[in-house]
């Protein structure tokens, strides 16, 4: 029934000899090499560094193994604040962008004419340089001339100092985060929607279902596997939020250094303070958090395997 059958695992009848092993190994080598140098080695090195006491990067020396780095960062209120900020950001941005994206994707899916044009339009931000986008958003958020404040003024709302008032900086960051997450999310959801057999909609219509019934009873449940996938991917990427922050607030973590995220903390420890041990330890903590969320997600996801 389903278009996508799971691929079964078959063992090749060919015997593995040095010769049959060598050829595919050569094909795979460039990729494996890249992964080893740029992903695997740095990962294990970071784990190692995070346990090295008083690690000095220039001389590559340390005084011994231990949990000192972890003790240090967990007693640093900035780091705790960074974890809280990041988690808040992730929860808000991932959930709001999902809801908006589902609505837009469903609408896009029902548009018959110019669908390609709309898809391209929604996809544009993905292929635009983030530095340029950051600049544009700084203008949109501008206190005196920004279009957002102009729109608010139409509703008699006083101008908000999005970028310079610490009270609003988290909101500004989230607005930007939601916006930048939309294209990728919409495209994936649209692909998911197009995999739903239109016959279910016809069947539901014959059963008397209205558009809203169909949306909640058919579309959303059948889209759930895609929604779950997108949620995981978005969660992982937004836990690593950094460039949005850097761009919006001109290289500072918020107007009053109030908006540290884990990666910004890491960046600062690494580049500004040259505390590689702290940076590595905070990276490992973030890794653990993401791993935990992903595992929970995966567990929930298993329930939605219909086909």
């Amino acid at each position, binding site marked *: 029934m389903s278009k996508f059958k799971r691929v079964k695992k078959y063992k090749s009848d060919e015997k593995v000899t040095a010769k049959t092993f060598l050829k595919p190994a050569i094909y795979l080598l460039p990729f494996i090499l890249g992964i080893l140098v740029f992903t695997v080695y740095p990962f294990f090195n970071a784990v190692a560094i995070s346990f090295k006491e008083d690690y000095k990067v220039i001389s590559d020396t340390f005084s011994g193994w231990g949990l000192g780095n972890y003790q240090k960062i967990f007693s640093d209120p900035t780091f705790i604040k960074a974890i809280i900020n990041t988690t808040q950001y992730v929860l808000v941005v991932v959930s709001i962008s999902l809801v908006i994206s589902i609505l837009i994707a469903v609408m896009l899916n029902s548009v018959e004419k110019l669908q390609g044009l709309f898809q391209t339009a929604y996809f544009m931000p993905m292929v635009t340089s983030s530095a340029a986008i950051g600049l544009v958003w700084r203008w949109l958020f501008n206190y005196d001339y920004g279009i957002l404040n102009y729109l608010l003024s139409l509703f008699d709302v006083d101008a908000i100092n999005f970028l310079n008032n610490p009270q609003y900086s988290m909101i500004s960051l989230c607005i930007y985060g939601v916006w930048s997450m939309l294209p990728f999310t919409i495209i994936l959801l649209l692909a998911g929607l197009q995999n739903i057999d239109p016959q279910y909609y016809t069947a539901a219509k*014959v059963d008397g*279902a209205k558009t809203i019934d169909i949306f909640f*009873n058919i579309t959303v449940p059948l889209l759930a596997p895609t929604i779950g996938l997108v949620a995981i991917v978005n969660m992982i990427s937004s836990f690593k939020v950094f460039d949005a922050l850097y761009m919006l607030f001109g290289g500072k973590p918020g107007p009053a250094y109030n908006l540290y995220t884990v990666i910004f903390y890491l960046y600062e420890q690494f580049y500004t303070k040259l505390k590689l041990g702290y940076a590595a330890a905070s990276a490992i903590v973030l890794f653990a958090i993401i791993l935990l969320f992903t595992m929970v997600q995966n567990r929930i996801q298993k329930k939605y395997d219909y086909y």
Partner: protein
Amino acid sequence: MRVKVKNLTKRFGEVTAVNSLTAEFESGKLIALLGPSGCGKTTMLNMLSGILPVTEGQIFFDEKDVTDLTPDKREVGLVFQNYALYPHMTVLENICFPLKIKKVSKAERIERAKEFAKMVHIEEYLNRKPKELSGGQQQRVAIARALVKNPKLLLLDEPLSNLDAKLRVEMREEIRRIQRESGVTTFFVTHDQEEASAISDYIMLMKLGEMQQYDKTRNLYNQPANLFVADFIGSPTINQLHGVYTKGGIKVDGDNQIIKTNHKWQVEEGSRVVLASRAEAITFNDKDDVKTKVVESYLSGKDTLVNLKIGSYNLRGYIDATKPIKIGDNLNIGFKTEGVFLFDELTGERYYE
């Protein structure tokens, strides 16, 4: 519920799928929409259900014109060719769905769903998901889901085509039983004449969007309206001898004898005709005088199915298995009155007596 269609037409761009079809269907019957692929039978069904808008013409349910009503307002139950069960719902939820949409209370809809689940014999599988069911079980669920809203019309789109041969025979009897028990007027689409003949009360045979014959199932076999109907219905396929009508008989192409039967067809001398005869309408009596040659013979139960050559055409008949038959033998045959028809070669129209 009685169904009437008047000048029903559906065009897709340049293609006419159903062409000005007028017919009246009796209430409470099982009606087969039969025909080769591309004949417009599924289009016809979809127009009855309301999924497909009508290009021209009208549809009446009893006296009510439903031509412009949406599917949900027509009170029809539809079973899709691949069942279209909602994969994320259990069997019970699937059957309940039309009632849930109608805002029937939860207790009542479960009760009614169980009642229909029992009728189609799937009450043990209520908590399973569609993917955990066999094709036959999925089909029963689809029928229960279509029936649970008490439709006035049940529409089945090639309901048996996804099943294996054994299950197909079993399920067609089930459909017959369920239709009898519920008493709902039922249309089902099929391209299999045997399937249609086996269970339906009436058959509407279609070809290229045109209705060929709408009649009681038996009559399509016994009284085909034209050569297409005669050819489509029945297994083995009806024998067809092409030739010229001359001197009160038929001179088959490639043969010199003039075949005379005891029919009194009103045919003009010299017309091109087709003499069509059911295999069981061929006789092998001593006084029979139509000369043929045995080409092949197959044992078929108590009879032997013989393939005979007459002129440029082949002819099949059933002969008593005790009679010794050799390939190449000359064999004299005759034609019964029943099951033998004469058609115009060009138009396929039937000549009546």
